[in-house]
């Protein structure tokens, strides 16, 4: 008790009290803090914890099928094992990784190139296939060595496949990996989606989509085909490692797209073209269904799905044959003599000619100081309207053009669809040129070029001059006449099919508009065109048909594709005339019209009409030409 000194103890007790107060204050501070965090801000932090731990992993939907009008599948999916590499985990050591992997799995230089390109394209985001279609041995070898390759895994993936390869490639198009540009477009789609829009959810998962349609129907029906991507709610660690799946929203597969195209007809025509280049469009006039949409030569869309290799790409791009060029959609050609029936109809409708009114053809037509020649030396003699079509008399149409003038021709041809966008369900359609004084004024810069010269009117009558149309437009115009002036929008897809219920919703549009044409006048033209195949220019090609078919040949001077210069080496061949042909059949109630061009082939009667004949024989009578290999349904 010696050490117990009262003053000291008091002082100490006092300080203990103060310390207790201090401690109490500090604890109250902590309690306040915890109440703030756990009661007041609980909602906010609960939300943060939730978003912390949950990641939405998109699950791509199965892409819809492409089916022809008879149920033949021309675009489908298959599942295969692929070696997927997570770009983020690789971080630059791509070459090392690939050489390590190639010790156990065969990786071709092409695989390597494609993979590296995908990496660059996508700026190192996401998972990319390095090798697809792994076989069992490779899968086993990889699984045994898996620990060596973090970020690499084997996955079953769905691939797009075009079972008929080149067939109908230009109309089908292809899908490919999403590019930065696609992503930006999708981002715009997301931003454009309204909150109350049921499609907004779909839009919000667009970033998870890895493949999109690049051209053709795959592109224009992308939103129908792709379906609604699903997603898994996955619990992830701070490092982003998935721990478990909390819930998943299943993806809704894309809808099937049912084409109006008859793929067998398409196949036949493509075969009939052989090595010739050209475009062929067949339309059902009553509906606007496109029955065949051929662009030759074509390419194999399967090459593009997983990224095309540079060698094939260079070949396709550099080829003077322009296999990537969608000729019926973008190629513009002078219609040549196939224009004459339309000119004749214009003359009747505008009362510039009667069917029986004749001209005398000496074999040429002088206008100003220029002589326009007929292709028949000595001329066709006395020519009425029917004869002008059957024998393809140029002089008749030189004179007609002069009598009508450019603007009257323009005003008649425009509603028929010449030089107009038809609105077909493919992107990138060319407009072509349907000349008028107005058009010339707007097109050229210098005043002397803007003036229309009367002499320029004359050759328009025989489908030359400034006239430049797509084969699609020509077929469309033919269909409009065959359909007695009722204009149906041409389309490649006729229905959207639900993949489960198989219910089809027709997309076939109603008529676009109606051209007020006199039925008698149309009859005159049709009758003349029927005669073309009996005693006229294409009589030989259509000898002995079991149905009545109207047609018109055309031979157009080359004016080149899209006015681009061809390479010097191949000039000779590429300067030859284009062979054109239009047709409708059967005569009383046409179920098919055709417009076609065989590039640099020569006379329409000789090169184009026989193809049209065989196509019609098949479509109308089911006759398959002996020389063409039989259609085999893809397994």
């Amino acid at each position: 008790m010696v050490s117990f000194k009262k003053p000291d103890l008091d002082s100490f007790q006092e300080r203990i009290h103060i310390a207790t107060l201090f401690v109490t204050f500090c604890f109250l501070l902590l309690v306040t803090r915890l109440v703030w965090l756990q009661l007041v801000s609980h909602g906010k932090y609960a939300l943060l914890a939730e978003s912390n731990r949950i990641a939405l992993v998109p699950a791509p939907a199965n892409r819809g099928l492409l089916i022809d009008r008879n149920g033949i599948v021309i675009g489908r999916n298959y599942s295969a094992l692929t070696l997927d590499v997570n770009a983020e985990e690789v971080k630059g050591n791509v070459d090392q990784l690939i050489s390590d992997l190639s010790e156990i799995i065969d990786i071709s230089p092409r695989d390597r190139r494609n993979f590296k390109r995908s990496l660059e394209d996508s700026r190192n985001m996401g998972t990319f296939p390095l090798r697809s279609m792994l076989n069992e041995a490779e899968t086993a070898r990889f699984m045994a060595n898996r620990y060596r390759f973090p970020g690499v895994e084997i996955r079953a993936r769905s691939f797009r496949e075009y079972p008929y390869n080149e067939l109908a490639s230009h109309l089908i198009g292809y899908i490919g990996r999403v590019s930065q540009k696609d992503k930006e477009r999708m981002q715009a789609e997301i931003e454009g989606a309204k909150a109350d829009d049921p499609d907004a959810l779909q839009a919000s998962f667009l970033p998870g989509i890895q493949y999109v349609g690049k051209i053709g129907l795959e592109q224009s029906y992308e939103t129908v085909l792709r379906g609604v991507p699903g997603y898994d709610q996955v619990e992830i660690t701070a490092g982003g490692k998935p721990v478990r799946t909390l819930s998943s929203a299943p993806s809704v597969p894309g809808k099937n797209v049912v084409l109006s195209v008859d793929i067998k007809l398409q196949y036949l025509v493509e075969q009939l073209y052989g090595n010739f280049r050209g475009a062929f469009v067949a339309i059902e006039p009553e509906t606007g269904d496109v029955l065949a949409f051929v662009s030759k030569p074509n390419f194999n869309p399967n090459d593009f799905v997983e990224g095309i290799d540079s060698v094939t790409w260079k070949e396709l791009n550099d080829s003077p044959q322009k296999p990537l060029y969608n000729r019926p959609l973008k190629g513009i050609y002078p219609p040549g003599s196939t224009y004459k029936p339309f000119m004749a109809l214009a003359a009747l409708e505008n009362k510039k000619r009667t069917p029986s009114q004749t001209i005398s053809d000496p074999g040429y037509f002088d206008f100003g100081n220029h002589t326009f020649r007929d292709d028949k030396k000595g001329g066709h003699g006395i020519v009425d309207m029917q004869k002008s079509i059957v024998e393809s008399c140029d002089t008749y149409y030189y004179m007609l053009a002069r009598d009508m003038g450019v603007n009257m021709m323009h005003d008649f041809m425009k509603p028929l669809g010449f030089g107009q966008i038809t609105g077909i369900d493919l992107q990138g359609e060319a407009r072509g040129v349907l000349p008028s004084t107005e058009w010339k004024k707007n097109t050229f810069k210098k005043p002397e070029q803007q003036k229309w010269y009367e002499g320029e009117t004359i050759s328009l009558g025989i489908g030359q001059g400034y006239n430049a149309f797509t084969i699609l437009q020509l077929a469309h115009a033919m269909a409009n006449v065959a359909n007695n002036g009722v204009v149906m929008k041409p389309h490649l897809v006729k229905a959207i099919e639900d993949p489960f219920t198989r219910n089809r919703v027709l997309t076939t549009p109603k008529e676009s508009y109606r051209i007020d044409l006199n039925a008698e006048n149309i009859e005159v033209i049709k009758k003349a065109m029927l005669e073309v195949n009996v005693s006229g220019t294409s009589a030989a090609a259509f000898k002995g048909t079991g149905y009545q078919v109207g047609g018109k040949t055309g031979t157009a001077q080359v004016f080149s594709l899209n006015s681009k210069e061809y390479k010097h080496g191949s000039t000779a061949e590429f300067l030859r005339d284009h062979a054109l042909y239009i047709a409708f059949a059967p005569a009383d109630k046409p179920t098919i019209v055709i417009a076609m061009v065989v590039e640099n082939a020569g006379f329409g009667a000789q090169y184009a009409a026989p193809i049209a004949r065989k196509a019609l024989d098949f479509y109308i009578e089911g006759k398959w030409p002996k020389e063409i290999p039989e259609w085999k349904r893809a397994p």
Partner: protein
Amino acid sequence: MEKSPLIKVKAFFFSIFAGLDRQLGLILLGLAAVGFFTFLSASQNTPVQIADELRNLALSFAVMWIVSRIPPKWLEMGAVWIYGLGVALLIAVAAFGLIKKGARRWLNIGVVIQPSEIMKIAMPLMLAWYFQKREGIQKSWDYGVAAIILAIPVFLIARQPDLGTALLVFAAGLYVIILAGLPWKWILPFVGLGVVGILLIIIFGSTICAHDVVWPFVHNYQKHRICTLLDPTSDPLGKGFHTIQSMIAIGSGGFFGKGWFQGTQAHLEFIPEKHTDFVFAVFSEEFGLLGNLVLLALFFSLIKRGLAISASAPNLFTRLLGAAVTLIFFTYAFVNIGMVSGLLPVVGVPLPFISYGGTALVTLGFGAGILMSIHRHRRLVQS
């Protein structure tokens, strides 16, 4: 007649626990239990073994028991030696210590030890001894001597650098000096300065934390740490990440918590050091505000009890020592919870008896043992 084995066991336990403060013992058992259950959840999916935690807890209680048997007189006699040894080891560390992660804190003497840990106990021991020696003849300059005794090891530890430990050792010494009667007129200006300083930092935080502002006397990373505390979102993926994630854990726990083993923040590895320094975040997330209030009550009663024991201690040495040890417990708990909940900067301070870690548990057991010893020997001395 033979005594039954049960009675024998009972008698044995009585002899073991004789003189131990029951209240303090129960509080510590409660904390240890909380620590163990939290550890089970926090250590899931980590290589840390339950056996290790049990061994550490047992070791801590064993040390406590042994120290509780040591008369305070012995501690008083050993104080200078322990302090001297601690300073000598710190000098040895400065001369040829091991460098890990850029800091020279460890000494290899067969086993690797961290001498600054010794100072946590040695400092209050030494100062309490000093003031005991000067009792009754105390002069103003005694505080100067005390300051030197305090400054030497703090300086050595701060230089390692180990600012967290240096501050704790400094706090431990400061408690003794203040409790020994440091005049208020010397204390209050510093308290005032501190309060003003903290207020200034809070008010002008965004200005002085601007990138190009250089603080005097402070390393850039230390400035960064304080600035991050003021606004954790300023560096969400860097220094602020830990604080933000532990705040999310605590806040998302709500009132009742997510339940034992149900904390997503902890189990999905968002909480750093989740079984050591940040274990409180795990506990908070799983047991909520309710659990926190219980835990804080446990700590508060621990401190109350420790202070009560000190207040009734027999001499100045034991009073100062007991109070200082108690306030170290408080400092640990306050700084740890304050840091995990984003109230204080992140410094490496464990939560007493809850955090995993052998050294800390042994140190804490030693401290608790001192309190037990003071309590146990109180009556003996007084009577």
